[in-house]
């Protein structure tokens, strides 16, 4: 499978330039979107596969959590009991803004370390934010 960062000519690192991602994505879709092949003899099905792949890759890299998850890969995520306790306390304090601040801090850390544990924290706290929206 093609590396998503490579597809858009980006370095494989958490901090990306969103504008660069957009521009590369648009450029690829200009070449492979099915609309472009509508009136041509070239293989529309193959173009569609590519277009779909670029859409998926773009959506993955565009969103910080999905981008981090992609970088971690398929490894099984496990949370230590200590980490769970810590996260639970933060959640129980119930302050959405505090949690958001913590998440922002964790992303900064993840950009440096790209480690699994930081990601587990991010994932856990993000779920709390999602749930608090309901």
């Amino acid at each position, binding site marked *: 499978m093609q590396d998503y960062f490579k597809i858009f000519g980006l370095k494989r690192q958490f901090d990306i330039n969103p504008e660069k991602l957009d521009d590369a994505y648009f450029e690829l879709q200009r070449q492979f979107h099915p609309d472009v092949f509508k009136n041509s003899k070239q293989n529309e099905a193959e173009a*569609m596969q590519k277009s779909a792949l670029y859409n998926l890759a773009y959506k993955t890299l565009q969103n910080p959590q999905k981008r981090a998850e992609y970088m971690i890969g398929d490894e099984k995520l496990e949370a230590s009991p200590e980490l769970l306790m810590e996260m639970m306390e933060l959640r129980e304090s119930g302050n959405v803004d505090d949690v958001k601040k913590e998440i922002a801090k964790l992303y900064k850390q993840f950009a440096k370390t790209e480690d699994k544990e930081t990601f587990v924290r991010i994932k856990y706290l993000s779920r709390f934010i999602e749930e608090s929206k*309901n």
Partner: protein
Amino acid sequence: MLLQIHEPGETPLPHEEEVAVGIDLGTTNSLVAISREEKPQIIGDILPSVVTINGKEIHSIKRRMNNPVEKVEGQTPVEISAEILKILRLQAEDALGKEVKKAVITVPAYFDDTQRSATKDAARLAGLEVLRLINEPTAAALAYGLDKSVEGIYAIYDLGGGTFDISILRMKKGVFQVLATGGDTHLGGDDFDAEIAKITGCNVLEARKKKENAELDFDDAIMPLVQKTIEICKAALSDAELSANDIKGVVMVGGSTRVPLVQKLVEGFFGTKPLTDINPDEVVALGAAIQAEALTHGSNNLLLDVIPLSLGLETMHDIVEKVIYRNTPIPCSYEQEFTTYENDQTGMIIHVVQGEREMVADCRSLAKFELTGIPPMPAGVARIKITFNVDADGLLTVSAREEKTGIEQKIEVKPSYGLQPEQVEKMIRDSMENARTDMEARLLQESKTEAERLLNSLKLYLERYNLTSAEHESIISIVKDLERELQGSDRAKIDDLREELNHKTETLAQKIMDGEIKKVLEGKKVDEI
């Protein structure tokens, strides 16, 4: 004289055969337009979307496209829509003096798979090849963006006779990228008229006249409906991870945006005066015409659209596993792996649904088919890969494949009309309102599924491997407790018993490990196998 040289096979077709029109198939009115060199124009007059059958006038047939098999005056909504499209085709042929066989047809962004397929079927019946179905607000953005040469993030607020759409788009260097979309396929001017008729005691047509002539103050009557559209705008902004002040302008599309209260509330919410410098009735057809030209002659512009509603599969106990989330750009392709739930299970029902809710019954059922011929294996061993492909029209194809044997089954999703019309429109709103109870129900079902899976594999292994009678008895007693709890709804109890059973079965796993499949099972408990 200069000769034009083309690559073999790439010779453009003669222009005579290249006529492709854009059609706005509306709830109240329909239009056809054509574009040359990105200069679109309406062909002929606006056509009321009314068909007379057996002397009876059929109005607003578009609102019935979510149930395309339910007949009206002996004809299906698809057939009736085809009548309207036929008239538009003839109108275009008369004006252009040649045959028209190809069209781009617009649909509300919030149309689901069923409504889109039905629209495409109607076009085929009317003798039109659909080059592309495009979303109404996206078409409007294309026409507006090109006409006014604007760039940046815009909202298209599209309130027609029967449907409401909001799309948040980014326009940048000829790319029209939809960031998020939302809507209600049963909210429009028709509903305003019905409310006004209720308070004035006159019929709907008289009410419409009163509304259009601004004969009375009916703000109170329609306030809840307009408020509803604002709520949908709010949700779409949140999906796009934007706030109202990120929006550079709000383009007003659809006849119902002429209602002063609509303009007032839209301005209040977005904090900017809505853009009304285009004809709200024509802009969708004009955009469709531009896209029709682009698809036949090429273009420097590109539309990147999204799917409006999530697509998923039914898993155990009526839970929906989402495979593609709403607002994913199209075309797209996603894979998801599933496994068998019972020992020696040879078939698997694949039920495809669309909607935002957690339980199958609350989503629209799109298709159901069976993957057969899975070779007998213990529960959880088969690897069934299900692929969803959504094309550029927003239409879905699903295929299923058992990875171990390569058995494959593919279907093009055809609607199975599992939902009543009123249910479809409410899907996202309900999913917000019911998220918490849904989540509880889902967690409970998941716990039950887990427990049942454990019980199932346990039974198989208990038969195969000998335990001491003391071990056996203590396991059986927990099994009985767990089976009893599975009839109830106490999630914590089920989880506790499952956990306990899991610990007890460590010995069993040990024995299995010493047995035939040692390598595979090392270090695992029974429920991880």
